[in-house]
């Protein structure tokens, strides 16, 4: 009897809690919701991203919100799993009817794109730089707060073509969606810029046995090896082993691998790694927006006062574009999917205080980046080029 009663109580409590009304919901406000990968293998970005969105929204609310309307922010953990992320998206939408949504991955973006266009009509961006979100004709409500992976490859290859015309290039990518996405376009860009794509090496994320790939690159006399689809491993292993095998090429990466934790792992070899980034770094406090973020973090999140990742900057930038689009849409009289899409497309030379150069949306992405190099002494990335724009 006691056991049965306990089961019944647990069951009833679960049902009651599930349907508990949300008392924090207020009326007459603009709402932004997000699904962050707060746990799971992308948590390194999600933890910072969740804070970034809250910080950007709180800053905007302090400055009057959306023409006087308060911005509300709700988020859920998507665990970096597609089904959990989609469920969280639908749950948040059902509860809060937001105007803008942030997603956790490329997979989630792909799965939701048709419904966002036809049904939800929310302005949407995510922890991705995939092409699907940079196609306003197909998906007018999806955007990227930075360059696509293809555009990042474009920036890197443009830099190489200028530094060493006709250089031998190797693409070193993971056997994942993230790794493979810019490769076909990368081949075309190499041809266009007169670079010799001599090798394409594929490895598992976190792979350690990469001697075959290194020897192949050595044999093909590679000048520049470009990583795609990795966050850290096997990049550090490749760079360390390359030295042992006498490979003398330069190593470069794209957005997710131009993060401080990679330099921490590379240690004294940090100076041998370069990459493309879309945003200024937390320590570049010569820029007013970075200065503002630093002061805010010091005051409100002292635990992170020393460093905020590039994922933080990405989400902060995305939220800034959400807020600007909402403001512009509100100025037209109503915030709807159509008005937000038009507002987003109208963003031109928008000053973001040095977080990026003045922003102009082009096909719902921002095709600009800058090349940075690791500094073995400070273990930070130093810019070695100006902002490189793509045509």
């Amino acid at each position, binding site marked *: 009897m006691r056991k049965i009663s306990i089961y019944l109580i647990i069951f009833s409590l*679960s049902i009651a809690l599930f349907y508990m009304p949300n008392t924090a919901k207020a009326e007459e406000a603009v709402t932004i919701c997000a699904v962050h990968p707060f746990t799971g293998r992308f948590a390194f970005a999600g933890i910072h991203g969740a804070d970034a969105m809250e910080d950007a929204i709180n800053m905007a609310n302090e400055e009057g919100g959306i023409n006087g309307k308060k911005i509300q922010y709700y988020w859920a*953990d998507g665990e970096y799993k*597609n089904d959990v992320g989609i469920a969280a998206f639908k*749950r948040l939408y*059902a*509860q809060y009817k937001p105007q803008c949504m942030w997603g956790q991955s490329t997979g989630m973006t792909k799965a939701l794109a048709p419904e966002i266009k036809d049904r939800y009509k929310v302005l949407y961006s995510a922890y991705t730089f995939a092409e699907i979100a940079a196609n306003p004709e197909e998906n007018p409500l999806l955007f990227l707060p930075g360059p696509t992976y293809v555009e990042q490859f474009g920036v890197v290859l443009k830099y190489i073509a200028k530094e060493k015309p006709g250089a031998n290039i190797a693409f070193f990518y993971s056997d994942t969606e993230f790794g493979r996405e810019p490769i076909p376009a990368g081949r075309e860009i190499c041809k266009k810029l007169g670079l010799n794509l001599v090798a394409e090496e594929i490895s598992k994320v976190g792979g350690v046995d990469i001697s075959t790939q290194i020897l192949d690159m050595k044999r093909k006399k590679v000048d520049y090896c470009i990583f795609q689809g990795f966050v850290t491993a096997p990049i550090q292993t490749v760079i360390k082993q390359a030295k042992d095998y006498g490979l003398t090429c330069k190593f470069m990466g794209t957005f997710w691998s131009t993060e401080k934790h990679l330099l921490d792992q590379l240690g004294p070899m940090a100076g041998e790694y370069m990459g493309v980034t879309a945003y200024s770094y937390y320590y570049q406090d010569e820029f007013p927006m970075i200065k503002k973020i630093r002061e805010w973090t010091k005051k409100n999140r002292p635990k992170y006062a020393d460093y905020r990742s590039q994922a933080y900057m990405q989400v902060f930038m995305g939220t800034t574009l959400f807020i600007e689009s909402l403001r512009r849409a509100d100025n037209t009289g109503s915030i709807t999917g159509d008005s937000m899409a038009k507002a987003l497309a109208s963003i031109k030379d928008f000053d973001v205080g040095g977080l990026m150069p003045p922003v102009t949306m082009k096909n719902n992405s921002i095709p600009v980046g800058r090349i940075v190099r690791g500094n073995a002494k400070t273990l930070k990335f130093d810019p070695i080029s100006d902002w490189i724009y793509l045509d």
Partner: protein
Amino acid sequence: MRCGDFKENYKKDEEIFQSYFVKFWLALFFIFLLIFPFIADHYVLYMANMVGFAVIGAVGLNLLTGFTGQISLGHAAFIGVGAYASAILTTRFGLSFWLSLPLAGVVSAFAGVIIGIPSLRVKGLYLCIATLAAQFIFEFIFVHWESLTNGITGIHIPSPRLGRIEFSTEKEFYWITLFFVVVGVGYARNLVRSKMGRAFVAIRDRDLAAQIIGINLFRYKLSAFAISSFYAGIAGALWVTFLKVVTPDHFPFILSIQYLAMIIVGGLGSILGSIFGAVFMTLIPEILNYLSEIVKLYAPGKEEIFVPMKEVIFGLLIVLFLIFEPLGLAEIWNRVKNFFKLWPFSY
């Protein structure tokens, strides 16, 4: 007042629903399922659909693992085969969803038979590894046979149509899911009472003894693989048609483990257990997510502690359930049912 359940002939004893009480509650449950889409919002209906797909997949795996004793770590691969078969048949060959769905089940069943062949020579952990290999082989095919599967980009799938009716929303798709759940569960429930079902159980309990009494191991083991994979294929086809997109990311190895967990938590060798397991494994993480969001509202700034805790709680719940009831949720249900059967005059 009812005080017992007496059967007077074999026909009564063989009935699936053995008393008026069961029939009454089941009828009530069906009425609830029919009015459910009219009272639930689209998120709840999304979850209901997800539970439905999990139920079909879990029933299939339970037929293979719970009833026939053949452990499979490749269930996600069979779900994937069905999903891709349906997507390819619909988009490349222009077949309607209603035709591509059973064909997806057949293609998946065929894949299941091929992978099931080693079960004739190996069992237990060795079979586990053989089916694990299937998981990785099919994952590789989904990614690399680009001309067929579109590689990592995946395939966008149109919503099913029936005349002028389009099944594109959660509410509309709910009817399709409900239909296949009822048919799938009903078939499985009857199958386990048939000659084939009893042969499955005999093989599970002692395959050598089963062979001695005349059960054709070759036929029945492969039949179990075929039926299980058919269910998986149908679940996969329904799932990706509901999501409107299929990519290789949908079928990771961990999905196979989740399905195994579903039937273990629910109850091995029990159709009802498969349903409970699917509901548990789909809804509990979602309820925990929701609870963590409530905690977040009342304890701002403590997300880093509370949010990851849900994983711990979920793991703990599974462990506790298995410690307190190793036979799974189906057994808990049986005990609750038995308690109320004679309540309040049990003796």
